[in-house]
């Protein structure tokens, strides 16, 4: 009888652990421990970026079977991860969140294996996972330099990038043909990357503000621009470089 009681106590406590675990998992989100705010920190829109080829009613079709993630990991890309319970409706669905280390290669293997049709195969150019936006205050090309890292990394190249060359740098701008794969995010030499990928819904909301910012910089007088670059932006870039000491392959 003692063994039985012991087992009962063990299993009661296991049950308690399980309940507390479920409670805990609601709190543990997908928080990132970055020291400095991410690029474009003033745009607080935060949507989920699903793998390529996600259909409109992705959330209602995804059963979280994990095939896409497993395939992605086996191919060595490890871009796909799963959301936590914080995202009520879309929890447990695949996302591509860590683009600084694991961007999407647009190999489209995950779309071929998805059993529910939540991801469907589309040509590379028509993928709309999101849109990458350049933080003009951090980008080297917008602050008196010539840096083509992002456009070189981009799988679509000149279809996506527009350059506004001037004496203030080559000034890259990413247009709406962007697939949101995140390769530019990975290869940006600025500490912590000067590019961030937003999902399309967030982009719709912040689009006006972003374009306004873009135009205001382009129409700025030289004195104002000098002030902006040398007293504000370059110290910021240097500071970020110190904080994010990363190795680039």
């Amino acid at each position: 009888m003692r063994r039985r009681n012991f087992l009962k106590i063990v299993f009661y406590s296991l049950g308690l652990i399980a309940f507390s675990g479920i409670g805990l998992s609601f709190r543990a989100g997908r928080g990132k421990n970055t020291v400095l705010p991410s690029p474009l920190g003033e745009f607080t829109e935060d949507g989920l970026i699903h793998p390529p080829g996600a259909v409109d009613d992705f959330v209602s079709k995804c059963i979280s079977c994990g095939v896409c993630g497993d395939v992605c990991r086996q191919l060595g890309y490890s871009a796909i991860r799963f959301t936590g319970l914080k995202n009520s409706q879309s929890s447990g669905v695949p996302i591509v969140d860590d683009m600084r280390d694991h961007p999407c290669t647009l190999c489209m293997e995950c779309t071929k294996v998805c059993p529910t049709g939540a991801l469907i195969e589309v040509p590379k150019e028509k993928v709309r996972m999101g849109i990458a936006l350049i933080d003009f205050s951090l980008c080297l090309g917008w602050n008196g330099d010539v840096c083509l890292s992002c456009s070189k990394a981009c799988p679509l190249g000149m279809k996506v990038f527009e350059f506004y060359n001037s004496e203030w740098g080559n000034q890259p701008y990413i247009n709406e043909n962007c697939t949101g794969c995140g390769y530019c995010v990975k290869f940006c030499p600025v500490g912590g990357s000067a590019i961030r990928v937003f999902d399309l819904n967030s982009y719709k909301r912040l689009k006006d503000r972003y374009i306004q910012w873009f135009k205001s910089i382009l129409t700025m007088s030289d004195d104002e621009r000098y002030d902006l670059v040398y007293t504000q932006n370059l110290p910021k870039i240097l500071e970020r470089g110190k904080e994010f000491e990363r190795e680039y392959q």
Partner: protein
Amino acid sequence: MFSIFAVFMLQFLGVKILVGSLTGSVLLYKISLIDLYAFFEVILASKKLTMVLVLSVLPVVVIYLIFGRAFCGWVCPFDFLFKLVDKLKNGYARLKWKGNGSYVKKQNLISWAFIISMLLLSLALGIPVFSRYISQNTNLFRFIGELINVMKGLPVNFGVMIFSASLILLLLVFEFFFPRQWCRNFCPVGRAYGLLNKVSLIRLSFENMDLCKECFVCDLKCYMGVPLKEFIESRKKGEAGLSGKFINCIYCGECILSCQKVQSGGGNIRVKFFNAKK
């Protein structure tokens, strides 16, 4: 019983035969497979029936049209885990499975209520609720996937990991206090395959009626609550009421083995292919 689960585990060693989980997977990177219940849930949640879905559920339906609910007894890893818990509790052989026979109707009501409420919830919320959140198989494979991420040093979502682990733990605790109630009454995955039991090629049959001493060890041994006692009694009377196709039967073979142990000459209960008359 472990073989299919083992094939699934091989994917983490780089052998890509079956990739994915028991909820949805892909065979040799060509044939998509999806769980039958998840299929219904996705249809209800997205209110659309797509070709991809049908193509991926088709092989599964064909397999289980032959083998009935053999998924539970031969594929589902939770059958094995639950057996371990049962063994820990009381010694597997001596465990009495309450609720055989007369309780079956009540059980059926509970389980149908659960399955339908889950489907309605999916319809209302527009997300496959059970398959994504509660399903034991999804959670098990999600947990293993995150564990692999930990081992490979990839970023891990601890929220998902903790949730999946604690849900599995909760099921094991539930199994300890209410043996096999999950499989019998709640798990809609098994229920969906149970529907195929009614039309599957495989079925239970009762043979050599004169030899049966009516010890009903088979009924005691059955942990899924199949009304074997009623089945045998009706067969002995010559009625054809129970056809040997029980929605709860998972073809685990416990009844056959127990009967073989009691009877020296082979045993009375068999699993038969095709709809032979007896």
